[in-house]
């Protein structure tokens, strides 16, 4: 299978909020990294924000991973937000309808301002 092409770092800019800084393509190879970081979000977390400003592309299996992440986040009664989407990623969100359930913002300040 393909080698991991993505790196994910987690930070917490405010209480109850986790930002995932994702670097690289989101493909099937991102499954392990996405599962690992989302699994660490405990009950004290109320929102997970995806920083996609360094994500050049998402393929269809990668979009599927984000749909899976969305289901997991909603089950824990958390919100899923995203910012920094380029045109390619915006297409992916729109075609898969992720944009209907994930709050999409221009930048980090705007995303944090939505709380």
């Amino acid at each position: 299978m393909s080698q991991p092409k993505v790196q994910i770092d987690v930070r917490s800019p405010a209480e109850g909020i986790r930002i995932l800084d994702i670097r690289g393509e989101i493909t099937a190879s991102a499954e392990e990294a996405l599962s690992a970081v989302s699994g660490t979000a405990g009950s004290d977390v109320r929102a997970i924000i995806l920083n996609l400003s360094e994500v050049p592309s998402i393929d269809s299996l990668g979009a599927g991973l984000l749909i899976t992440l969305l289901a997991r986040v909603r089950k824990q009664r958390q919100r899923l937000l995203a910012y920094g989407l380029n045109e390619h990623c915006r297409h992916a969100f729109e075609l898969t309808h992720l944009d209907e359930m994930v709050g999409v913002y221009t930048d980090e300040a705007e995303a944090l301002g939505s709380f």
Partner: protein
Amino acid sequence: MVGSQTMQAVGHSVKWADPVDRLTIPPLPKEAINTNTEGRRTTGPVRGFGSLWRRTYAIRLVTSTATPAEVVRVWKERFASFWPSGGRYYGTDKPIEAGDVALLNLSGPAGVTIATGILVIYADDESFCFISAQGHMFGGMITFSAHDENGTPVAQVQALLRASDPLFEITVRLGIATKPEDQFWQGALKNLAAYFGVEGQPVSQQAVLLDSSLQWSKAKNLWYNAAIRNGLHMPVRWLRGQGA
């Protein structure tokens, strides 16, 4: 290319289709049934009702020297010909590309033909992906891909599915909907393998329940249920001498 967005990433031609509001079905042969697809919107797992499943089917093309890109190229060119009996795929005459719309005529219960559709939302050199239309039994995304596994090409179908409405969810829970779905994709993969000269190879299958909760806000999808609509339309087709 018309109707698709082309971007380059890591040497692959990565394409998402241009978003469309409503589906327009390509010209169809006379025998095709298109009673519930023209003008419909796409759905997918985000807009589905039932539990979220990931179903993965794969076959190893053990005696083939084809590259993953060659496997996917053939799959795109001859997609309809690999479908098992019990289903018809009416797409364009060209190889599959992002932005294509296709009509599906599927065998349903009691001899009813279920007419529904898909949009090809994504295609690159080693994969392509469908999303389902309103009325399809699944709010689904299906990715067809190939990859190399220790020198052997592997063809894979991965479906991310929620039953579209409460009625279809019942059929999923009873196994009425999933068993034919499993058999269908196993058959399609065996037909693809046969094209590459691979016979008798088993299809591996994995089903993972990702989210057992129901999206009750999507229960109204029942209005577009293709089985109900085609069942109601069947007497009209009989009277016109067009069969089920």
